[in-house]
């Protein structure tokens, strides 16, 4: 089943993306596949924070791992709703999720 993920880019533009849930894809990979400005430098290992984003909607998401917490520790512009897009795998219960890309 495809779901909808809403991405607010760094200029405030809103992108409503159709996202597959059966490809083990993360939000970082989704952004890259739609050519949104997310580098994903480390390839998804929670090691670069180039996919740092803020969760704006009230969805219940997976808890961050120690690796993700450690990376957010060394990142900047971190807020209580900060997550790494590479650690958020697309799942059906994320339908309608809205996130905003953090500054780089």
């Amino acid at each position, binding site marked *: 089943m495809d779901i909808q993920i809403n991405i607010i880019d760094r200029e405030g533009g809103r992108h409503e993306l159709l996202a597959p849930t059966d490809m083990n894809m993360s939000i970082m990979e989704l952004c890259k596949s739609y050519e949104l400005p997310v580098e994903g*430098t480390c390839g998804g290992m929670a090691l670069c924070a180039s996919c740092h984003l803020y969760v704006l909607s009230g969805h219940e998401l997976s808890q961050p791992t120690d690796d993700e917490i450690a990376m957010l520790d060394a990142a900047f512009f971190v807020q209580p709703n900060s997550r790494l897009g590479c650690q958020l795998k697309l799942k059906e219960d994320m339908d309608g999720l809205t996130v905003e890309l953090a500054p780089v």
Partner: protein
Amino acid sequence: MNQRIETDIIIIGAGPVGLFAVFEAGLLKMRCHLIDALPQPGGQLTEIYPKKPIYDIPGYPSVLAGDLVQNLMQQIAPFSPGFTLGERAESIEKQDDGRWLVTTSRGTQHLAPVIFVAGGLGSFEPRKPPISNIDHFEDHGVEYFVRDPEMYKNRRIVIAGGGDSALDWTIYLADLAEQITLIHRRTEFRGAPDSVEKVMELAESGKIKLITNAQVIGLQGNGQLNGVTIQHDTEGEFEVAADHFVPLFGLTPKLGPIGEWGLAIDKGAVEVNTLDYSTTVPGIYAIGDINTYPGKLKLILCGFHEATLACQSAFKVAFPDKKLSFKYTTVTGIEGIEK
């Protein structure tokens, strides 16, 4: 003038692909010299994920990134490669004799007819906090590395960060500096438990000042740093006098000077011809994650292939008058190259 290092191929970037290029070049009797901004070979495998398993190296169901680098070092040892480590390749310059001169951040000069750019994600540089005037204070009170601990003697230091290097330097400098303030955005530290405990002890005994749930948001001084502005989650903004501010937030890769060498660049990667992974500049090749071409995949195994083909082509540049014959290692074995 420094003594120049002369070789057949200068390889910029000592990651897995740069290292394997030494092997393939060695089979063709070409000598190689590697340059890397990091102090050790291995690139991101050593720097950012040495303990992570890699599953797509042919013949290895699983291999730790750090082990792969060690194996590659062993595999290329017979060809006696040279290394210039801890120095970033800054500039390239074509010489009258057709060779390339590559100069590093510390002024080390290298000469060869061929350059392989195997720079991966670029060179690793300190992650700089987003403080608007931080550039003005670099080397005037702001340092991203502790190079010479003696310079902090009897000075007031603010260290920021929550990892091992922030903890270790806080502990080390506690005896040396007049005053140490450690700032961390959270209350939990992710460094080694022993170091965390030691820092807590130092804070309790008043030897250091520990401010958690806070970050440095401003720097003051007239040319030379004299204070930092700290924003605390609950207590708001306040200033702390400081002669030095040392933000320790790890390293992040940047394309760096490679982007200014006149090579065709597309979205931060060097464009190559897939015939031989040559760039738009004759004698310069780009292999591994740093290059781009239609269908490019950033995989170590693809980089190995690219290195192999680039060596065949590079031979014709380095030795235009010699015949090139392709050999299997199973038939001819490995003939090393003396230093």
